[in-house]
């Protein structure tokens, strides 16, 4: 099998994982117009929880999800109320949120260093039996396939929530026009808190699998995940959760191929694409207007 085709297939799995990693960030921006710079740190915390569960109870990551999702959903809901409503009363919530959540990410990184140390940790591939599977003639780690499958399932759930439930309808209304949604009786706090909780839970679930498919877990890797997530949601479209998938596909393929043909430069790729997209089409590949004039 040629390298080119190999990269094509693994990039699909990559794209699925990174959609989930970035989706929550976009949900929060779309609904609350705030930027969660601590997104990557929540992902890292999810990852640590999964590693701890695997170490002490031998939990398979898919099983760990049953613990990770409710825990981080609760953390998200608890964090929403002291932080976000107060933030939105300030003069410029969008800019203030940058600084506020940078503070949160600092505190979380410091906490992670205290709790888990600075060394790199990973889940073992042999949590899945067999370690490798063969699909359509390609042999790949089972962990990767499971990661992609879980990501697709999570995407489907988010889609179901947004487009098939009453709360989802209110969420979309809030994303399109905040004032009119408010005037029509959308309960901003309830809808936003749920979206925030979902966002944190999604980040943490991506974190459960992150040490398999992307980087090993360490306190400082959170920033990298935050930046990659940003790149992805801007390439797709800021404030449009499902466009995240498009962004993730573009990112995954660009990353996958530079990794093969110019490995030295592969880590720059997300940022170059991000800047190029912002300059050429700031609304993202699928977005509406973003430029002011």
């Amino acid at each position, binding site marked *: 099998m040629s390298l080119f085709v190999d990269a094509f297939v693994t990039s699909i799995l990559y794209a699925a994982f990174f959609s989930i990693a970035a989706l929550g960030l976009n949900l929060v921006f779309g609904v609350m117009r705030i930027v969660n710079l601590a997104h990557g740190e929540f992902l890292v915390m999810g990852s640590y929880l999964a590693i701890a569960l695997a170490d002490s109870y031998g939990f398979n990551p898919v099983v760990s999800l049953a613990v990770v999702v409710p825990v981080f959903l609760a953390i998200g809901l608890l964090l929403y109320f002291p932080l976000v409503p107060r933030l939105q009363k300030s003069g410029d919530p969008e800019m203030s949120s940058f600084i506020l959540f940078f503070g949160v990410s600092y505190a979380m990184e410091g906490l992670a260093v205290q709790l888990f140390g600075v060394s790199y940790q990973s889940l073992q591939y042999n949590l899945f039996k067999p370690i490798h599977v063969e699909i359509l003639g390609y042999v790949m780690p089972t962990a990767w396939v499971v990661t992609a499958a879980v990501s697709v399932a999570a995407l489907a759930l988010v889609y179901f929530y947004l487009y098939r439930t009453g709360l989802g309808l209110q969420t979309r209304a809030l994303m399109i026009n905040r004032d009119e949604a408010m005037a029509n009786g959308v309960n901003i706090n309830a809808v936003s808190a749920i979206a925030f909780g979902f966002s944190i839970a999604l980040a943490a679930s991506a974190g459960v699998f992150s040490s398999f498919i992307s980087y090993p877990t360490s306190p400082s890797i959170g920033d990298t995940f935050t930046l990659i997530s940003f790149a992805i949601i*801007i390439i797709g479209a800021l404030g449009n959760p499902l466009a995240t998938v498009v962004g993730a596909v573009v990112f995954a393929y660009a990353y996958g191929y530079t990794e093969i043909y110019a490995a030295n*430069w592969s880590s720059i790729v997300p940022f170059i694409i991000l800047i190029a997209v*912002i300059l050429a089409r700031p609304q993202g590949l699928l977005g509406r207007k973003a430029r002011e004039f």
Partner: protein
Amino acid sequence: MNFRHFFLKDPKRMWPEASMLVAPLAVIFILGPDIYPNQSIFMELAVFIMLADALNIVYGYTGYLPFGFGVFFAVGAYGTAILISHASWQVAPAIIAGACLAALLSLLFTPLLRLSGAYFAISSLAAFEAFYLIFSNTQLTSLTGGPYGISFTQVYNANLDYTAAVVLAIASAIVVLVISKSTFGIALQAIREDRFAVELAGVSSLRYRTYAWLISSFISGIAGGLFGWYQGFFYPEAVFNLTEFSVLVIVFVLFGGKGTVFGPVVGTVILFLVYEILSLTFSNSLLIIFGLLLVVLVLFIPNGIEPLLRKAADLLLYPDGRD
């Protein structure tokens, strides 16, 4: 370009405030190293004051927050270092050229100024990361030293550098004062408050923001050059340090009071001291403490301490009310 905008409406009214800025800073920088004999801390303070003033021009006066704004600092440092080590330039022209390089880079990013807030902040962050990865790339080792750092110790002169940094730090505070009193500064504030009204009045908000952006990046570039010169040798991580030369500066400005003349200077002096003490005594939980401090700052004193200090000073000077 009409330079009349940059002139003062009433230069005489500036003197009291200018002396209130210069005198305390001069005292700190001249007596400081005698009281606490560690010049490098005061050097860093001078660099931070320059950066805080530079950021204040963009963030305080135009409302745009360039999150990865340390990229100009780093490019200034690298420009200076490369010119000295590869082309054997004198220090002064090398620092100015480094700062011009930073300003040139900012010109490259002016299209970003058309974007609304979050896009701008994020893309400047991406630019920061991209430039870090370029400068530290192993394939550019012959030019930038790559990950192994760059050295230009032949021109090292700590005392001269300290003096230059102090003078320029005070000068940058004066620049902010001049801007705040000029038509230019008033236009910037008007743009921050209501861009559309300003555009309707026939003022190109984009052009004014570009000027502010250029001035700011130039000052950051100078700060970078001076910092690099003081080190004589640095790794890419030392100047491309998002925590120190972007975030910390944002915190200083925010704590002092963005969009004010005294805020960034006062905020930098106080918080830098706190930061140094914290990092000496609680190095383990520094990140946690500083993170929580940021959260509290944004939620409870979003306008910084400058308005509070001003109110306190008014109460002291005019106990019976002003008029």
